């Protein structure tokens, strides 16, 4: 399960990288989300890609706030049936 989660997290991180405007930003699960400069449109596209890739529906609360990239990634992964609960 842990390796499944790792694969899902890696995939979601790659989606984030493909959407953000500044491709020079390096980040991992521990990076503060503010440092990635992900805007609302980027978030919409990342959510969409995760939904398409994993055939799921993501329903994040409107007021969701994340401190780190990992918080965001784990919140998305929680909607993926194949992912174990972290």
């Amino acid at each position, binding site marked *: 399960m842990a390796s499944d989660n790792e694969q899902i997290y890696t995939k979601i991180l790659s989606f984030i990288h493909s*959407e953000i*405007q500044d491709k020079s930003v390096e980040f991992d699960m521990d990076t503060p989300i503010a440092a990635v400069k992900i805007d609302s*449109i980027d978030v*919409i*596209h990342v*959510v*969409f890609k995760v*939904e*398409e890739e994993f055939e799921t529906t993501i329903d994040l609360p409107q007021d969701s706030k994340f401190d780190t990239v990992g918080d965001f990634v784990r919140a998305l992964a929680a909607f993926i049936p194949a992912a174990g609960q972290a």
Partner: protein
Amino acid sequence: MASPWVEITGRGVVSCAGLDVAAFQNAILAGEGHIKPFDENGRELNLPPEFMAGLKLRFTRGAPVIGFDPTQHFEPRVLAGLDRFSQFAAVAARQAWKEAGFDVAPPVADRIAVIVGTANAGNESVGQGWQRILLEGRKPVPLTIPMTMASGASSRIARETGAHGPVFATSSACASAAHAILMGVMMLRSGLADVALVGGSDACYDFGYLRAWDALRVVTTDICRPFSKGRLGMSIGEGAAMFVLETTDHARARGAPALARLAGGGMTSDAGDLTTPDGRGMVRALHAALRDSGLTPERIGYINAHGTGTQINDRLEAQAIREVFGAATDKLPVSTIKSSIGHAMGASGALELVAAIATLESGIAPPTLNYLEPDPDCPIDAIPEGPRKVNPEAVLSNSFAFGGLNVTLALTRADVNL
């Protein structure tokens, strides 16, 4: 009081007859035909291959924009929010902005208006959304809603040019661009703006849209033959054209040369049928354009007609012109480029304005292509033989839309005064 005439100082084009002004003008003035059988257009029709065979259209010709690669103009991140009609409009606007010299020295942001006419708005994105939902069992792409907004093109152009003044879309079917252009004139005359980026854009090669036109039985199964005996209807085009309009004071103050002068125009409504025009509305639009511009009928040396190629439009338009110009109609050349580039819907009035400017600059009027023989119901000189030297100082351009919405624009050479 500001001068009622305004200056056209920039223009841009995305069309089936070329992806810039020079290519478009050369094609139009040479009388080239760009309505082609669909199989010649092949995959460029922008339709999924599986739909090509299943289209089941009665008509087999059209004039889509070929060779327009959006990835050459927009980053993927931007493209994800732009319908094809917005892409066309933004690229045409960049050309116009550059020709006006504003890419180097932009005007005051608060004094720029952007008005783009569109009949279809983001029709293609709607069609692709349905395709994903119903045929592929997927979700529509996340930016479908902003992509379908009629004002999407105007917002994109405002972002690229930094326009902070009045920015919106006009929609009046096939008069959408002409309304946008005349709205720009009114903005400048009223003092609400110094510079107006105006024009029209429509993308038409979505399979559902083509099927819908087929159901209306207005598109010819032959080829578009405006004002000719034997005409059977229109052919579908698409594209965009945009213009920079400026007050005379603004253009002169910065030493910008005018391409032509937009003297004014007339806007009328038939208050009538949704698809059957009323010639009286056309007559009133022509009269209104002459009155607004201050041009007398004797000064009009050419008319760029709406000329769709349908039985009723061409008959009523020809008779409206004869009613306004009387016996002088015999010596008044009138042609339409819709048999060259098809009917580009909400963009048609803008593409035709580019053609009208080319006629003022070159003195050459484009021919009405595919003309077989005169129709007594269309008593005008439709320039059937080929391009003709007409040297007009002033011309009119008609846009007469479904729903009985009529616009006539009046323009002159850059060196002509009231």
